[in-house]
Structure formats: structure tokens, C-alpha cells
């Protein structure tokens, strides 16, 4: 080719200059485990269902929840949402209202009659599920999704376990509970009510069950002997909650009630006592408020309703219509010790809320099943010492929440499924957790949390109507969009647009990005400017 004066070379492109060879560090795309997901006892992929909800795809969001948790409307109300304590957004303004969005989705599903399809071919295997609480329902649901036939045996006249007989109606209305249980039944899960199992092995054999999942909870109240001249009536928190559901004795509680204990059941009993017309309701707890096992927001709601809290108190005796309490102090180790001073509380009823024990005599003569400190022992695969008999929920050592039981049900179902095939279940490996430090929060707009409407205080004190209302659609959408997408690419195009070397390829919606390592110089600008910490720098190997 004829070239102009003084030109000897043809024009070329800098594309022939592979600047990737300069690199000493290499950026790589990663997925990290969001802290919410990491702490969810039911193993929900919270971030992912929020992702669907963010674009108004509520059905997609609900379907995603249902992969792990069959009862979003219940969980959105009664779960103690450990996810929200872990949420990275706490470090910015306030947690994403995960429970409120979950409830919104759960209620929408009930309203629209959404249903889960079972795709798995029938396996021909039958699994007996004992207990229709959150653990049993979850296990039956997940077993059904895996193609097995599950049947639930329930001793009580209605299904739901502690969700029905333990959680007060102002936290979980009965029609919500019924709706989510009947959706599981409609998948082909029979629930045999009023059917107490007495001989597990015999029933399994007789009715052709190949495996069993036991999740009957912990119903027997722990007792504490208190010297009582009979002038103060003694009741147990769990019995009060249960009797209300059964339609019994509400009036008997009297005007002045003292609840002993500091857990969530104590709070539920106290708030129930308020609703039953007690004029003075006092919770006596032996340590300080911070150390109460009950959740702080529940304590707060109880106080709003007029419940009084007397901390550092231990019951001494009941005499002449008084409950006499020892005043305590915490010693150096945080253990409460009596000061020698006393407090006198005039009371009609003393309500013990000291926890519950497992009461499952039908397991006593099943060989191999072992117990320790009242709990049923299981291995890493949720199986008791008896082959093919699995267990979960409050019966086994755990933090005894509904959501934990749902998680146990799921985990047990997967393990039972593997066991039925003669295999062992291997849970998928988890990514490292996305910490707050891995985020670049500059890119997030300030967004104060939305607030669920609350029932007015007079109505809260006088009846069992639900305290917390639902978010409307606009608020639910707003709340979902507060999620930071910790640790997982949300395709914001920051990396693609910010690379000074044009060394990132955008692969298109849903397909994320890839590096052109031929040209990436390894400056790590993309790593620093990724809002959600989905890019990591690693040392370049030579």
C-alpha cells in the first residue's frame, strides 16, 4: 500500500496491546451469602425473594419463599426474624422489614389462592409424620414436594401445634393459620386429628410407613414448687394460652396477675392476661431486662399494653393473698443472688412461665431412641438412634422457635428422602457471609423503614384482634427495595461502566458480566465501587 510521507506502518488498534499482562491482582466475581439468609432457621433465600418482590413480581417472590418455607403468612407474623437482627442495613438506618414483606406476600397468596405444584414423580414411599406443628407440617410439605406420600398424625382436635395452642390470636389470626395448613392438606397430605400415637413401630408397620418424622413439641410446663397457703391461685402460662384456644376458663385468672419468667411465653401470657381483663399484670424475672430471653420488641409491646416488669425478683412464697419475692442482684458472673430484701405483691393468680419439657411417652419403648436432659437426641442427619425414625422441632436440642422447627422439617425431609434411597443427604456448600464492610454503601439511597399499622391501644387491651396490620402494596414494594443485595450482583452496571480499561463485558439481563482478562490491568476500581461486594481481588497467579 502506498503510504503518506514519513509513514511506514499501517494504522493499528490498541486491541493488539494486551495490557492484562500488567496485572498483579485479579478481580473475580463472587457470590456471598447474605447475612439474612445465613441466619434464617428455615433456610429461606430472603434476598432472592426480595429481589422478585422489588420488581413487583410477587408471585415469583412467593414461589421462592415456598421453596423453603410453606407458611409465609404465618412466619411473616410469628417468626422472631433473626434475619432482621443480622441485616446489614442496620448499619445504615434500620433493618429491611423482611417479616412485613413476607407477610404481605403470604397474605396475597391466600387472597389469590396461589398453590404449589408438585413436579416430582411419585416415589411410592410413605412417611409417617407425628405432630402437626410447624415441624411436622414442614416435613410433610417437603416430603410431598420430593414425591413421597406423607401423612400427619395429630393428638389434638385441630392442626397447628403450638402455632394454634401456644401463639395468641392477636399475633396470629386463626384464619391465616387455617389457610396455610389447608394449602398443605390440599397437596395431598392427610392430617388425622384426635389421633394419639401409642405404639410408633406397630403403627408404621401396620399402615406401611417406610420412615417416620416425629415432631410433637414440648408441651409439659416446667414446674417449680412454691410454698403457698392456697391464697394465690397457681397457673401455667402454656395452659392458659392453650385453654383460650380450646374455649375454656378465661375469667378465672382474676384481677391481679403475676407472671414468673422472662421468655416469650411469659410475655404472651402477660398480654393475654391483659386481654382477659386483669387490671394489674406484672412479670417477675430473676435477672435484668436485657437478659430476658423474650424478644425486646415483644417486651416493648407488652409494656405498651400496661404490663409491668419487675426484674431481679425471685418467688419466695405465696401467703395471705400476697406473692413474696426476693429482691436480687447480679453477682460478678451475672448470676442473680438474693439481697435479703423482700417485695410483697398482692395477687389473685401466679402464672408460671418457666419453659416446657418434652412429653412423648410413645417413644419410651422404641429401641434406639435416646434422650438427654429431656430432649430427643438426633444425629447430623436428623435421625434418632432408631433407624428410619427422624425427629425435629422443640423436641430436639435447639433454640425452640417455630422457624427452627420449619427448618428441621425441611432438613429432615431431605435426609429422609436420601435415606429412603439408601443414600446420605449432602447439604450444598455455603458461600462466605457478605459483611457490611464488603459493601460500598455510597450507592444506596437513604430509605427509612416503612411501618406496619398498629391496632389502637384500647382495642389491644380489650380483645384478641391482630395487633399488627399489613403493609399496603406501595409500602411492601418500597420495603423490598430497601434490600442492599448484600454479596450478590444485582446488575447495577457499576463495574461495567467504571472500568477505565473497558475490560468488562456486559452479558445481558440476568447474565451478569465477565472480565476481559486480556486487558484488565487489575486496578480493582470495580471491586471498590461494587455496591454489594460481589467482586473480590485475588493475587494473580503467574
Amino acid at each position, binding site marked *: 500500500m502506498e503510504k503518506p510521507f514519513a509513514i511506514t506502518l499501517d494504522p493499528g488498534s490498541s486491541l493488539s*496491546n494486551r495490557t492484562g499482562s500488567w496485572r498483579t491482582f485479579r478481580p473475580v466475581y463472587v457470590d456471598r451469602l447474605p447475612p439474612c439468609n445465613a441466619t434464617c432457621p428455615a433456610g429461606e433465600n430472603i434476598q432472592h425473594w426480595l429481589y422478585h418482590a422489588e420488581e413487583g413480581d410477587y408471585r415469583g417472590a412467593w414461589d421462592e419463599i415456598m421453596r423453603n418455607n410453606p407458611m409465609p403468612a404465618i412466619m411473616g407474623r410469628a417468626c422472631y426474624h433473626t434475619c432482621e437482627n443480622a441485616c446489614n442495613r442496620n448499619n445504615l438506618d434500620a433493618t429491611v422489614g423482611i417479616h412485613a414483606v413476607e407477610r404481605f406476600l403470604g397474605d396475597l397468596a391466600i387472597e389469590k389462592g396461589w398453590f404449589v405444584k408438585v413436579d416430582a414423580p411419585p416415589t411410592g414411599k410413605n412417611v409417617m409424620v407425628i405432630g402437626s406443628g410447624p415441624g411436622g407440617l414442614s416435613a410433610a410439605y417437603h416430603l410431598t414436594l420430593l414425591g413421597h406420600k406423607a401423612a400427619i398424625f395429630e393428638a389434638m382436635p385441630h392442626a397447628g401445634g403450638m402455632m394454634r395452642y401456644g401463639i395468641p390470636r392477636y399475633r396470629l389470626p386463626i384464619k391465616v393459620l387455617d389457610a396455610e395448613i389447608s394449602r398443605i392438606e390440599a397437596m395431598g397430605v392427610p392430617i388425622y386429628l384426635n389421633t394419639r400415637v401409642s405404639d410408633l413401630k406397630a403403627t408404621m408397620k401396620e399402615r406401611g410407613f417406610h420412615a417416620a418424622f416425629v415432631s410433637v413439641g414440648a408441651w409439659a410446663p416446667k414446674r417449680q414448687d412454691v410454698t403457698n397457703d392456697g391464697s394465690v391461685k397457681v397457673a401455667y402460662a402454656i395452659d392458659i394460652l392453650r385453654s383460650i384456644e380450646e374455649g375454656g376458663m378465661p375469667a378465672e385468672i382474676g384481677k391481679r396477675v403475676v407472671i414468673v419468667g422472662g421468655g416469650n411465653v411469659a410475655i404472651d401470657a402477660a398480654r393475654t392476661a391483659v386481654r382477659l381483663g386483669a387490671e394489674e399484670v406484672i412479670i417477675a424475672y430473676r435477672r435484668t431486662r436485657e437478659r430476658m430471653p423474650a424478644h425486646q420488641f415483644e417486651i416493648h409491646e407488652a409494656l405498651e399494653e400496661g404490663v409491668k416488669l419487675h426484674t431481679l425478683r425471685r418467688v419466695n412464697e405465696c401467703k395471705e393473698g400476697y406473692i413474696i419475692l426476693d429482691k436480687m442482684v447480679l453477682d460478678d458472673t451475672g448470676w442473680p443472688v438474693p439481697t435479703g430484701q423482700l417485695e410483697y405483691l398482692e395477687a389473685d393468680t401466679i402464672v408460671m412461665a418457666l419453659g416446657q419439657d418434652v412429653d412423648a411417652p410413645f417413644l419410651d419403648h422404641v429401641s434406639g431412641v435416646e434422650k438427654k436432659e429431656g430432649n430427643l437426641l438426633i444425629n447430623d442427619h436428623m435421625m434418632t438412634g432408631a433407624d428410619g425414625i427422624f425427629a425435629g422441632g422443640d423436641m430436639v436440642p435447639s433454640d425452640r422457635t417455630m422457624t427452627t422447627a420449619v427448618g428441621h422439617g425441611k432438613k429432615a425431609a431431605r435426609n429422609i428422602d436420601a435415606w429412603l434411597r439408601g443414600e446420605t443427604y449432602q447439604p450444598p456448600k455455603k458461600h462466605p457471609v457478605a459483611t457490611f464492610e464488603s459493601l460500598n454503601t455510597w450507592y444506596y439511597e437513604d430509605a427509612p423503614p416503612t411501618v406496619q399499622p398498629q391496632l389502637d391501644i384500647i382495642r389491644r387491651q380489650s380483645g384478641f384482634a391482630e395487633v399488627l396490620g399489613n403493609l399496603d402494596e406501595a409500602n411492601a414494594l418500597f420495603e423490598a427495595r430497601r434490600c442492599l443485595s448484600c454479596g450478590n450482583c444485582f446488575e447495577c452496571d457499576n463495574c461495567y461502566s467504571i472500568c477505565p480499561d*473497558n475490560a468488562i463485558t456486559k452479558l445481558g439481563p440476568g447474565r451478569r458480566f465477565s472480565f476481559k482478562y486480556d486487558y484488565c490491568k487489575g*486496578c480493582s476500581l470495580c471491586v471498590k465501587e461494587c455496591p454489594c461486594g460481589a467482586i473480590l481481588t485475588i493475587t494473580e497467579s503467574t
Partner: protein
Amino acid sequence: MTDLNPQQKVKFYQKGTYTTSNRLVDARARLVQASMDRNNSLTCGHRACQGCGEALGARYAIDAAMRASHNQTIAVNATGCLEVFTTPYPETSWQIPWVHSLFGNAPAVATGVAAALKVRKNKQVRVVAQGGDGGTTDIGFGCLSGMFERNDDVLYICYDNQGYMNTGVQRSSATPPAARTATTQAVGDAPGNVFGTGKNVPLIAMAHNIPYVATASIANLKDLEAKVTKAMHIHGARYIHVNVPCPLGWGSAPHDTVRVARLMVECGLFPLFEAEFGEVTNVIKIRKRVPVEEYLKIQKRFAHLFRKDKPDIERIRAIQAMADANIKRYKLLGEGA
């Protein structure tokens, strides 16, 4: 006041409100830089340092100009890093018609290109001139002023990295006070560059009464793209002054290039504004104000201000006073973003 994020009308995307894009934003409203078919006017393989702010700013600006002109843009480049790292003979990183002549004459060459187009009655093709702060505020300044004064149909973009970086970090009239450069060493009674002088070319450009003047930063790339796009829809002389940190010259980490730029905006040292016919019409408010120390501390060119044995409190205060003066003058605080 325009929106803080001019491309984004709905303030409902808490996540991604300030990111380049967001899947919830209407596809037509997304940035050029978010599109898969952007021009990549300044493509891979160039020889800029790791984390170069100028390379980033230039791709944004020229891609936006290309989009706004339906790919009918000619760029004229002054001598400087941007020219040198993109066009080592016989290679080029430019995927557009691109002309380089001298260090000090880019505005005049651009004027000539615009005049030639006019003679040929070509109304589609637009002219962008670009150069570093040295080429703009020092040696090219006379040509630039003439281009403004004649209201030639050129958009001039200055990539300000506050020094003659291409030749080894010498001081320019855009180098800030106290900054250490090869020609303003951090020694003696007044270490680094002098205080009290400097040349504010955006304000000088405004004094020419031209249709459009703006400042921009790679800290706010949405804004940069919006300003270039807006300027491309105006005829006559236009000037955009873009702040582009230089990791090598400023002594900042390559991965901190955008962060330094951001801190410079957020502390008030680099106000982002637009002016039409000599009047400021829009400013971008500071979102999270920071003291100047946060900006200064991560750059080695200011390290002498933070000596462990004797931090230079007086000079840090003087720099803070400059930031405060900007905040007051341009009303950078408060609502209205």
C-alpha cells in the same frame, strides 16, 4: 434544579439509586455507559496507568457525545496523557475520527475543523476538543479564550488531573495549594504548591458569556454523562471541566480513583455546577459532607500535611476554608438534590 440523577426520574430505587443503572429503570432512560452497544470510543489496550481517572472520564464523555450526535463526532486532542497513552504509533485506542496537532492549539484546531464543516454545509458532524489541565489552563489558554470569544461551535472538555502528568507530574495553574509535584517539592517554609493563586477556568469561561459551562467529576458519572449529552444539544462554544484523579501524580491507590474524586466533591473542594450565559443555573448538592482531611489523607502529594511529629494544621485549615468558601458560594449544602 435538576435531579441529582438526571437520568432517573423516579426516586424509588433505594438500591441502585446512585449506581450506573438499575434493572428497574426504564431501558430508554439508562446511561449510555450501561448499554451493551455503547461505542467504547476509547477502547481496551491503551497504556494509561492502572485506575486512570482520565481514561475513565474520556470514555464516558466521548461515548456520550457519540450517542448524542448519532455517532457523528470528530475529536481534537491536545498533547498530554490522553493523547500519548491512546496513540503510540501506529496504534490507536480511538474508535472515532480523532485529530492531534500540538500541546497548545487544540481549541484552535477544533475551531478550524468546525469552520471546515461549516464551509461544507455539514450540519450533522459535531466537534469536541479535549485536553489536560496543562493544555487547557496554561499553554492552550489563549486559543481557548479565542474559541469562546468567537462562540465557535465546539465543545471543549478539559480533563483536570491538576498537573502536567504526562511529563512527570509538574505543577500547572490547576495544581491545588500545598500539593507536592516535581516542581513544587514538599520542602522549606511553604512546602508544596503556593496558596492564594490558581486559575479557575470554568469561571473564566463563564466570563465569556458562552451558552454552556459545567464542571463534572468521575465521582458522579451519571452527571458527567448528562452534562456532555446536554452540551451536545447546544450550539456555540461550550466548556466542561472534568475532575479526573491521577493515581500516579496524586499518590493515591489505583482502586481509590473514584473514591478520591468523590471525597473531593463531598468535602466541597470541587463544586459541581452548570452555568448558562454566565449564570450558574444548577449545582449538585453535597450528599455526605466530609472534612477535607478525609480527601487529603489518602494522597501522598499531601502527606507532608500529616507528618506524625507535626501535622500542618494551619494549611489544612486553609484548605478547609477553600472548601467552605465553595460550599457558601455555590450553596452546596441542603435539600434540593
